[in-house]
């Protein structure tokens, strides 16, 4: 399996949380690129190579998706549902990273096929530590699902 250009897709509308997450992930040397989507629609467009991302191909899928639940335009559960019901994207690990403490969101998340569900710690240091642990587990310990190594022409691989 070959490295793709974007390894993690981070879907979150909170600038503060995005900054914190990016900062925590960058400290892990194994992660090179994080694509950020600010709402559900942008996430869907990115993953399904449509709209402003029509130039992308399904050879460049991210290795991990960190998904918030409360998102503008299309909400997190709907994004999750679409990812897990399309055979091109359903094997990508999706980790829900949300501030929600609702039990029913937790159940719904797992029911709709989320690989895991994390409640964002309120404490700044714990949040950072949590993100690091997520990165370590999903990028190193976890075995990645199968992606293609084919070269598809000049523009990116």
């Amino acid at each position: 399996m070959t490295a793709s250009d974007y390894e993690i897709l981070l879907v979150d509308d909170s600038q503060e949380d995005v900054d914190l997450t990016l900062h925590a992930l960058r400290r892990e040397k194994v992660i090179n690129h994080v694509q950020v989507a600010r709402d559900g629609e942008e996430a869907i467009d990115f993953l399904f190579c449509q709209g402003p991302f029509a130039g992308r191909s399904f050879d460049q899928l991210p290795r991990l998706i960190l998904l918030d639940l409360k998102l503008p335009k299309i909400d997190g559960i709907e994004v999750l549902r679409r990812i897990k019901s399309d055979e091109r994207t359903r094997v990508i690990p999706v980790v829900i990273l949300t501030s929600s403490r609702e039990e029913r969101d937790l159940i719904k998340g797992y029911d709709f096929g989320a690989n895991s569900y994390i409640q964002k710690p309120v404490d700044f240091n714990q949040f950072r530590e949590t993100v690091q642990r997520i990165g370590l587990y999903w990028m190193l310990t976890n075995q990645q699902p199968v992606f293609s190594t084919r070269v598809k022409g000049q523009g990116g691989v």
Partner: protein
Amino acid sequence: MKPAEAVGFSKIGLRVLLVEDTAADAELILRELRRGGFEVSGEVVQSPEQFRRRLCSDLPDIVLADYNLGGWSGIEALDILQEQHLNIPLILVSGALGDVTAVECIKRGATDYVLKDNLARLPVSIRRALAERRLHDDRRRAEEELARKASELERSNMELEQFAYVASHDLQEPLRMVAAYTQLLAERYHGKLDAQADKYIHYAVVGAQRMQTLIQDLLAFSRAGRGGLDLEATDCNLLVKDAMQNLILAAREGGAIVKYRDLPVVMVNPAQLRQVFQNLIGNAIKFRGSKPSVVQITAERANGDWLFAVSDNGIGIAPEHAESIFVVFQRLHTRTEYAGNGIGLSICKKIIERHGGRIWLESVEGQGSTFKFTLPAKEPGAALPAGTEIGSRRPDEEHTRSLVG
């Protein structure tokens, strides 16, 4: 009826098919053959139809044909024999033939020609024709035997490779148990039994770990030769990057720097070529000297191939070992000096050669090594979209990856 054998001048049986339209001539010929030491059983035919019909039943050892036969020619009898793929020698027994005609007949496949006013030559000619045919048959039989043995050998080799693969694969599991539990024993009982017990357990642990790497190496070696080659257009820059992911843990001691730039896209089996890069880079890191390892990877066109070079600043290899290092299980150091079973380079060699390339070493002991290998620059076929050049470079800045762990 036993086949004719040319054994000196003892009487031998000979089945002759005579294509002759003059009865007297036929009689003369047969008499000459008997005088020449043959026990002849012969038949005479005159027309092409009769000739064909005779060929349907008992096949003769030899055909003697006149050149001029009224409506047809002896050479047409030759054509009939060839058309039926019958490997029976034909000798033309004829009146005066011009040299040109004679040579023409030989060229078309007649074994010899004998003039009717020199029939004494006929028995010798026949003996020689039969000997030649026997030689020819023997050789063809030998070739068939060889081909059969070769394909048996190939099948047997494949079975052995399959066995080696399955055995290495299946051995991993019980070995894992032995390795894990001997280590747990060591951990739990170290210092709690006696010094002797600690030593015994230690030997068991080391032995089990050695077995594990050996089996893994055998498995990798088996895999390198297995299955179809499955070529894909592969970007070597990404492949090197991937290979180094697997080396991060191995390079934990001392930082290693790997530099590569503008590596091409080639038609290879990506998993196998990745293994080659991984082994070469891994070796460069392992056999470093006192300074941290610096590895350079380059590629250039040379004679229609891509020539790759992986250079390091390590301990180097003396030129007298340049070939033997590619031999499986060949090592140049003791296990206390450097770990490993000596299989990495033989795997590289197997993979590169399977792809139609060559691999060799240029090195100075104490100054580092450069491993070079070639890969054919093939066309990918219709698989790639128009506008994609194979063998094109991605004009990138040089990649430098640091493996500081």
